[in-house]
């Protein structure tokens, strides 16, 4: 990737951190979705959730491989995905929240897809060629995720009393993790200024518009924004991440360096 050389030299460590956190978001969410495999309400939905997880894994792999290249210490995608400690993961807290019932899984995915959709679209014009290339693929994939989860939000919200109530509960439970999506810390700021990153804070209006349009059709309401949880980007996680990692990392910890 000769085209990205200048960027790498300018802020190697920041770029590494920026790419790594994006990779972590996708890996952890993908691992969560994978838990549904064989247990989803219908066969079609089982395939759908596994397919979305697969898209996310693909995006995570590209990002980890690139992060390893940027870091330049010889760590490959597997080492970055499997051989770090909990506090080293920088994923958003919402991605590690438990699947809960189907409503929780759908709302979590809907919130994140409605965010990643404009995020990747803007990343397509990043000055970093590799991130732009990954974004060009990911933005098409996330369109499907958003459409799929939107349909479920409407079907469940405007469904039975039971499904409606469960959706209300899921929205209430997950709302507090949405503030973190739009935070701009020093890493994100530096990447934005160098033309590499996306202004996440600027995505909020579009996110709200997308979410509210669908929720309205689903006869649901976006809960009022109250206290927002934060900390994922600095490695302060909910208690759930440790459990995810113990399963995710099992093979690599038992047999270090294992490959297919």
């Amino acid at each position, binding site marked *: 990737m000769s085209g990205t050389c200048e960027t790498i030299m300018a802020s190697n460590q920041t770029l590494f951190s920026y790419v790594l956190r994006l990779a972590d978001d996708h890996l952890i969410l993908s691992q969560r979705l994978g838990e549904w495999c064989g247990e989803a309400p219908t066969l079609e939905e089982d395939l759908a959730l596994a*397919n979305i997880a697969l898209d996310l894994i693909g995006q995570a792999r590209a990002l980890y491989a690139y992060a390893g290249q940027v870091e330049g210490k010889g760590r490959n995608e597997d080492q970055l995905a499997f051989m770090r400690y909990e506090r080293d993961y920088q994923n958003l807290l919402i991605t590690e929240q438990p699947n809960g019932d189907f409503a929780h899984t759908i709302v979590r995915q809907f919130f994140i897809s409605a965010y990643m959709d404009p995020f990747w679209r803007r990343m397509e014009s990043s000055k970093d060629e590799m991130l732009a290339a990954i974004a060009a693929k990911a933005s098409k994939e996330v369109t499907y995720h958003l459409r799929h989860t939107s349909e479920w939000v409407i079907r469940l919200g405007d469904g039975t009393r039971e499904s409606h109530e469960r959706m209300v509960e899921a929205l209430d439970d997950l709302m507090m993790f949405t503030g973190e999506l739009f935070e701009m810390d020093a890493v994100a700021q530096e990447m934005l200024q160098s033309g590499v990153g996306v202004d996440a804070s600027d995505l909020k209006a579009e996110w709200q518009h997308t979410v509210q349009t669908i929720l309205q059709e689903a006869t649901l309401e976006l809960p009022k924004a109250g206290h927002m949880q934060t900390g994922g980007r600095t490695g302060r996680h909910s208690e759930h991440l440790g459990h995810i990692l113990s399963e995710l990392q099992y093979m690599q910890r038992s047999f270090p360096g294992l490959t297919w």
Partner: protein
Amino acid sequence: MTRIPDKHAQHASQQSLQQAAWAAAAAVPDPEIPVVTIADLGILRSIALDEEGCIVAQVTPTYSGCPATNLIQQMVLEALHEAGFENVRVESVLSPAWTTDWISSEGRKKLRQFGIAPPTETSNSKRALFGETLVTCPHCGSGETERVSEFGSTPCKALYRCLACREPFDYFKCH
């Protein structure tokens, strides 16, 4: 003393080498839809010769998480080895991103004959969240079809059924 071939001859032999390598790599079938080749699908981007005379095959993934990607790279390597090329490298390129527009008309025909509806010609509106696309049944040709699921047996396919002939079928997602 070795005779240095004149530039013209060298160029011509390079071209025929590349053509032979292309033919070998282009014939590799898609592991998940073996009726079409990776050239039909537009997965094989280019064959080039680098300065050291190494054959460089460029392939592109269809979907980020497509599990066939690694297998395709392996198959291209093997096909080129079998065709007598020893010094071979396979590279993955992400840009420009693959879209269903890369599928050749030959590829679309083969997909339809296999019972998979090829992607609609023009991209379906990405922003229209519920913009339905008209998908024609590959069995009876009816436009009276409905989507059963956005996601199918592989990342690149969706599940449809025909309301006219009642047959279920796969649709190659427009992308």
